[in-house]
């Protein structure tokens, strides 16, 4: 696994109140990939992400970034947080300033960049997320979707190598969900590793290069989406269901409508083309 950018080895983590959130979890995320982390509510996804960013320190086990073991010294933590960005579920929790410009400038300033550079980064991040016209507006007068984009620009401005999106689509309607997914693909093309947590199996199936299935602080299954989503038992035990594309595909094979030797379709269009 020489090209893994983030790695967790045998993580065990208990919250101070005794809840065991991670239970000997190992995971390795490859550079430049699109990774989906699937799991029911409370499976430990968010806890793992906070480990990737060095916010939480495991009771046992270790985190590796780019092959190096994180030692939780100030300098290394800074490096880690520079390179691994998290876009949190609730933008209202992440935005601390009412000024969009101030808000986005916070991260780059913490990196110790010059004012000039920071201004440039803020501008670029706003451009990419399409919020340049919000510059003069206060966050509290914006819609959920707009706040979500600001929270993404927050992280983009830091130019991390990995961006983790925690449940990015839950509150978005179908149109905005599609937009944001397109956006993920775009930044991924620029070489950023994108990790996405979700319990939307259809989304994970058609989007990800690689899927991890979580349950109770452990990894239940890993693999390419085609393999993972064939495994009904695995999905059941993680409180998940099969993506409808897979379900229909299997049914169509059973009913001999389509040829079982054809490769399993990833997107709706592919499935329809098979028929």
């Amino acid at each position, binding site marked *: 696994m020489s090209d893994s950018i983030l790695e967790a080895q045998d993580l065990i983590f208990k919250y101070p109140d005794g809840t065991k959130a991670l239970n000997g979890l190992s995971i390795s995320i490859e550079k430049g990939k699109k990774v989906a982390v699937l799991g029911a509510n409370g499976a430990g996804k968010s806890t793992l992400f906070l480990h990737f960013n060095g916010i939480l320190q495991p009771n046992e086990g270790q985190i590796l970034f780019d092959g190096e073991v994180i030692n939780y010294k100030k300098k290394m933590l*800074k490096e880690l947080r520079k390179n691994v*960005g998290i876009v949190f579920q609730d933008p209202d*929790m992440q*935005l*601390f300033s*009412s000024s969009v410009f*101030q808000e986005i400038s916070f991260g780059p300033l913490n990196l110790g960049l010059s*004012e000039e550079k920071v201004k440039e980064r803020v501008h670029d991040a706003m451009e990419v997320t399409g919020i340049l016209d919000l510059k003069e507006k*206060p966050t509290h*007068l914006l819609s959920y979707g707009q706040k979500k984009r600001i929270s993404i620009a927050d992280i983009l401005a830091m130019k991390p190598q990995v961006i983790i999106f925690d449940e990015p689509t839950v509150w978005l309607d179908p149109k905005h969900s599609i937009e944001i997914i397109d956006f993920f693909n775009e930044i991924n093309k620029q070489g950023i590793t994108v990790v996405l947590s979700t319990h939307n199996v259809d989304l994970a199936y058609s989007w990800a290069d690689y899927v991890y299935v979580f349950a109770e602080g452990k990894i239940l299954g890993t693999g390419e989406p085609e393999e993972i989503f064939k495994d009904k038992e695995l999905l059941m035990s993680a409180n998940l269901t099969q993506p409808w594309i897979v379900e229909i595909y299997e049914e169509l094979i059973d009913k001999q409508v389509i040829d079982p030797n054809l490769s399993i379709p990833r997107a709706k269009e592919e499935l329809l083309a098979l028929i």
Partner: protein
Amino acid sequence: MIDIDQYAYSNNLRSIHPIEKALFALLTMLTCLVANSIITSLVIILLMAGVVIFRAKIPATSFAKMILIPISFLLMSTITIAITISKDSSGFLYYISLWDWQIGIKFKNILIAINLFLKSLGTVSCLYFLALTTPMIEIISVLKKLKVPKIFIELMILIYRFIFVLLDTANLIRVSQMSRLGYSSFKNAFLSLSELVSNLFIRAYYRAKGLLTTLLARGYEGEIRVLEPDYEFSRKNLVLIILTEIGLIFITVYTGGDLFV
């Protein structure tokens, strides 16, 4: 959510340098206070109303409604000052007697009260000019340039943001309580409110924790550093401000106001 705040972001003078606007408001405010003259106060009220309504394009009706906010305090307090309690009944325009005290009003005190009322309204309209044309974020950045302690500035930035988050939360909880028949009687209103308040506090507590996490994830190390967008000073505006203030002082002296008394 808060009218004044919304106008501050959408008014027609938004793009003017915040320091210019603050200077104009504060200098005029001081002039009004120091001049202590009915005529100067009236001129300032009209000036500010004019600028707010015609330059900043705030609807006149909204401005009038806002001017009424402090009026209850002003009326109550000025009336209290206008009323004289004395054992000596001379000089009263009208009075009633209670035992050996006379309670009533005197002409001189009415004048004092009117002056006080208008002076206060004059400075209030200066405050409104600032509040309606300059977003709080920019007022905070002015304070930052004035070298107000960092921690004070940081707290202001955070508090301003979280006022709206908590207001939103409070509203949602209130709606949920009302839809379950909360606030429908006095006792019930009391209980509903204290549940709301305590819940809001707990929510605020968890938010504080969550906020720390999200800031740490962005490399926070104890100081909240942010950049401000640039504004350009306008020499013309600065000259205009100075001329206005000189004009106001001239009016005060000319009409016999007791400047610096």
